[in-house]
């Protein structure tokens, strides 16, 4: 077992899902309740990673992190090193890659809160923030938890984007899925079998937790 890879993966997934939670709450709120006509464009943008091959996403990310792109140069002049092939770069890439898995369940949960409850809250003198914290959020908590769990799990399982953006540096960018790939390449099938089994059990436990929380068997994908 590659404990270093496991620890790195857990750290990466934890950081990513925490940051995604902070980003997704306001973003999902805006997507759900904004009356602007072009919200669907942002929705599509957020959901792109669902349909785009990870290599395509990874390719664009790699290009934009490189020394020739303005973002890459700004990062380098700020931190002194490149964003590509670092843990930070992996975090940025994973946030974009896993964003739909956080935003969609949270937005879906917000949308099913009865609008009359938010209106009632407003007529009772509550500000938008208070209405969100006291009404919308508590009534969508299942969706929020699902969003966090799914974005964590999805980050754990990513492969293509990590390979493109992070490469395969032990302790820095080598995640579990990369480690399995390595083990197979090196014909270490015993190692690979064990690691793969750990991932399988993990994925099942996560999905069981999400479905169990919703208590509506097979009603939809975990995203709906």
């Amino acid at each position, binding site marked *: 077992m590659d404990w270093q890879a496991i620890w790195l993966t857990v750290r990466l997934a934890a950081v990513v899902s925490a940051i995604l939670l902070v980003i997704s709450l306001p973003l999902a709120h805006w997507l759900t309740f904004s009356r602007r006509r072009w919200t669907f464009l942002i929705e599509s943008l957020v959901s792109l990673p669902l349909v785009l091959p990870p290599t395509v996403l990874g390719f664009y990310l790699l290009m934009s992190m490189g020394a020739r792109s303005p973002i890459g140069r700004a990062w380098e002049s700020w931190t002194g090193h490149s964003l590509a092939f670092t843990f930070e770069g992996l975090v940025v890439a994973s946030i974009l890659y896993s964003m739909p898995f956080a935003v969609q369940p949270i937005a879906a949960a917000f949308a099913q809160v*009865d609008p*009359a*409850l938010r*209106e*009632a*809250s*407003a*007529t*009772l*003198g*509550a*500000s938008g923030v*208070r209405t969100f914290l*006291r*009404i919308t959020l*508590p*009534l969508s908590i299942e969706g929020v938890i699902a969003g966090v769990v799914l974005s964590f799990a999805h980050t754990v399982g990513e492969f293509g984007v990590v390979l493109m953006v992070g490469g395969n540096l032990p302790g820095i960018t080598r995640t579990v899925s990369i480690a399995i790939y390595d083990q197979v390449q090196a014909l270490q099938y015993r190692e690979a079998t064990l690691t793969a089994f750990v991932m399988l059990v993990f994925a099942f436990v996560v999905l069981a937790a999400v479905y169990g929380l919703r208590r509506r068997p097979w009603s939809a994908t975990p995203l709906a």
Partner: protein
Amino acid sequence: MTLSIDIRKRLSSQFALDVAFTAVPGVTNLFGASGSGKTTVLRCLAGLLRPDAGHVSIGDRLLFDSTASVDIPVQQRNVGYVFQQLALFPHLSIEQNIAYALHRRPRDEQRQRVNDIAGSFHIQHLLDRMPGQVSGGERQRAALARALVSDPSLLLLDEPLSALDHAIQARIMEDLRAWNEAHRIPVLYVTHSHREVFGLGERVVVLERGRVLATGSPHEVLDHPSHVVLANLAGFENVFDATVTDRHEQAGTMQCRLDDSNTDLEVPLTDASVGAAVRLAIRAGDILIANQEPRGLSARNVLHGRLADLTRQGPTVVAKVDAGVRLMVHLTPRGAESLGLRRGNHVWLIIKTYSCRIVVGGS
């Protein structure tokens, strides 16, 4: 404090709201068919919907004025709103629901106010329960308490009681009236039920397709002859104040004397006691007319009178009969023809006991 509203709001190419009326402290019914714009008016008053033009004020406090660019946000309007589906917060206890509007006030004051309002609406024993654990009537009481705990300057009720049975509804309205006696604010009560118009409000504003059709007391509004639409909306062309003179418990009926007349009617029994004032309503189409005194009838009410007027309105002939009181009767053109009815003729009106509805007094 008087509510004054004069607003215009276009909702679609088919529907535009254009209403102006005032409401003094006490209960004013906002009456109309569904789709007449009642809820839209409430939403504009609460600030949930922005009118295209006009103004809204309570006393000398301006809530909305399109010319002065005043539009007080919902949160600052201090307008109590009880939604049709009540919108109690399902994850908060009744107590937390009621205290929701008080979060900026000191703890002691919160507790005091919650206890006072819970007392007014008789739900002290339910404060620890969740909204899902109490009955429909108790939920209505909780929603009223929540809307009133912060002393709003206006209360808006969007048919919150229409799903309840009449006895429970009447008791809740009594509690609301008692509260309103001590806190003189305008209460706008939206309804499409004629029973509620007669039973609950001191004044009525009738809406029809986004416009005010009539305002006044229920009696005035319904007696106004030009409002055929209104009569149809209300469903009753004949409305009388009367006094209960006798009760026949066994027969399930009681006797009423119509005020300012010698006319007696037998009507269905209610819990109104002898001497109590009631209001009766009879549909014009439920009255039979005869040109000679009928015999061998099961109907208990036969009134003698003279035909005062006979006019044709589309497929209906409208007869007005003086029988101590003025009654309106609808009949078909062929029916009127076969009787050879002429103005001034003696006629007899036949009214079944169960065609007389008690709309106010008793339940």
